[in-house]
């Protein structure tokens, strides 16, 4: 243990003595979080929509049918209460809920203020607004046709100054992120990126440096077991990642006022698992290359697809199918998805079980592969 600790101490000296790596490790992450997030608008397809119908009359049925047959929508049945709808949102099974107010048909015909409310998932604000707009188009298309029908069958309506009847009031409401703030959406992605950068790139560089300098031979010729050497290299980066996580949470919470809706414990758990997976990826890279430069290039090559595929900038749902399948092997995708659910929607642990399992499996695969490569290298 004492041998191990003197090794960890040495690793910290390396880091503290190099101003460039200090800057990358301890200043850049916080700056990245503070930078405003610009999220690009995406095309939205396959909107999973469910209906909360309090009237069940001829018009609500017609609108529901139009939604169901529209190419942009996938009908997901009906719910009875708003609570039921919110639960479906949390599980990630629907994207939109169309709520028809009570006595829809009679209000539409007589008092002229029939109302529709559209609920959407605000944790992805840009997509949410596009989804709502599509739904509004369907409703206004229906309204127009209805007005024309009425006008031709009951021309007397026209006499009272144009088509005034048949107004459907549509209002939309974003759930989970009612202010529609993009930084809320941006934070999980940035945290995912920073962790990958530190755990994956910096760790692999630190390990490869020993090999490049020739000190690895000396270490291997010492009685220290190989596993201790690797662990001692990983620990400082794990500590730094946890420190960054803590400061980022403070910045987002107290300065940017991004609330943590779910439990902090769940979020930290998922983050720790993601840190583990990223460290193992860094370890794997370090066993594949011989120079620090190569380690850095490979890490960067991994980071670019991560930006595109993780859902950090572009939503996974609006990607082509092949890209969606490919996104599953990007660990950051799972982390971002889980942290959005926890931070913004406030779901409990069991709803992010899929993400956790994916991260753990990937981490273990990276670990086994690195162990295999490490063994062959020794010979």
């Amino acid at each position, binding site marked *: 243990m*004492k*041998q191990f*600790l*003197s*090794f960890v*101490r*040495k690793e910290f*000296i*390396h880091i503290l*003595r*190099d101003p460039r790596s200090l800057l990358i490790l301890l200043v850049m992450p916080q700056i990245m979080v503070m930078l405003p997030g610009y999220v690009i608008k995406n095309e939205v397809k396959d909107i999973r929509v469910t209906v909360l119908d309090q009237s069940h009359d001829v018009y609500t049925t017609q609108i529901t049918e139009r939604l169901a047959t529209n190419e942009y929508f996938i009908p997901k049945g009906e719910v009875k209460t708003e609570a039921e709808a919110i639960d479906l949102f949390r599980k990630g099974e629907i994207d939109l809920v169309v709520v028809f107010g009570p006595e829809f048909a009679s209000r539409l015909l007589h008092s002229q203020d029939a109302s529709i409310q559209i609920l959407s998932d605000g944790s992805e604000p840009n997509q949410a607004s596009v989804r709502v707009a599509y739904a509004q188009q369907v409703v206004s298309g229906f309204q127009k046709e209805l007005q024309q029908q009425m006008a031709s069958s009951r021309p007397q309506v026209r006499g009272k100054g144009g088509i005034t009847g048949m107004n459907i009031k549509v209002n939309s409401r974003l759930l989970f992120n009612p202010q529609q703030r993009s930084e809320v959406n941006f934070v999980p992605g940035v945290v995912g990126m920073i962790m990958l950068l530190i755990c994956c790139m910096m760790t692999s560089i630190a390990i490869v440096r020993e090999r490049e*300098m*020739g*000190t690895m*031979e*000396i*270490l*291997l*010729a*010492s*009685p*220290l*077991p190989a596993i201790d050497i690797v662990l001692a290299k990983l620990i400082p980066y794990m500590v730094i990642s946890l420190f960054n996580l803590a400061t980022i949470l403070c910045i987002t919470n107290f300065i940017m006022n991004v609330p943590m809706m779910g439990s902090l414990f769940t979020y930290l758990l998922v983050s720790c698992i993601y840190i583990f997976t990223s460290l193992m990826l860094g370890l794997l890279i370090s066993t594949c290359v011989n120079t620090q430069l190569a380690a850095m290039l490979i890490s960067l090559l991994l980071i670019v697809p991560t930006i595109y595929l993780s859902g950090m900038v572009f939503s996974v749902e609006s990607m082509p199918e092949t890209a969606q399948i490919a996104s599953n092997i990007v660990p950051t995708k799972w982390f971002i998805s889980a942290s959005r659910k926890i931070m913004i929607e406030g779901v409990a642990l069991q709803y992010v079980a899929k993400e956790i399992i994916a991260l753990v499996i990937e981490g273990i695969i990276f670990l086994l592969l690195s162990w295999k490569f490490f063994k062959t290298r*020794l*010979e």
Partner: protein
Amino acid sequence: MTDKVVIKAEGLTKQFGDFVATDHVTFEVHEGEIFGFLGANGAGKTTAMRMLCGLSQPSAGKASVAGFDVATQHEQVKRHIGYMSQKFALYDDLTVEENLTFFGGIYGMSPKKVKEKITDLLTELGFESERKTMVKSLPLGWKQKLAFSLAIFHDPRIVFLDEPTGGVDPVTRRQFWELIYQAADRGITVFVTTHYMDEAEYCDRVSIMVDGKIEALDSPANLKRQFNGNSMYDVFYALARTAKRGD
């Protein structure tokens, strides 16, 4: 130097696919001896040395170092040896003292003992003023001496030196060999590979490897007599030109 055997190799072999890097090598090294391990590039010296250090498993044959089997007891082997590789291998961004503290630490020495030894060592080397100096700003000769001191910092029974004086000027090489003699006087067995034939003359006994096999093994004086040469260079040239392997 005593008659006690500290390194014993019997038919030690390392094969990579069809290529036999080290081919049934047999020799003994005695305690306190300076044993020169010579051979042209690619002769299989480094491979043999790596096996003796417990860094690589023999394909056939066996070897014991400090009484421990290199194939099965490499942890114990590593505990009793020091190793200095071809590459200069100190941490550039650590001070002299930090480097020594680190290596003392990974060999399980207590902080108190490490401190005492550092002071002794630096005084002995006349190096006390450089205690807090970053290793990268030291001249190469000093780094080399420091690397050797590190290799024997934990008082190993045997120290393996893999071409320790590559790229160092003759005066520094001479000084470096003074350190090697001092270590041998303290009873540390020195196992050294080199390309410099004048250095071969400094060894108690020398083995010369050609194409993975040991072709000659004796004291420099006996070897010169046997091969009718005036210097170790003549001996080495007589043997090495028969080599079929190149780099």
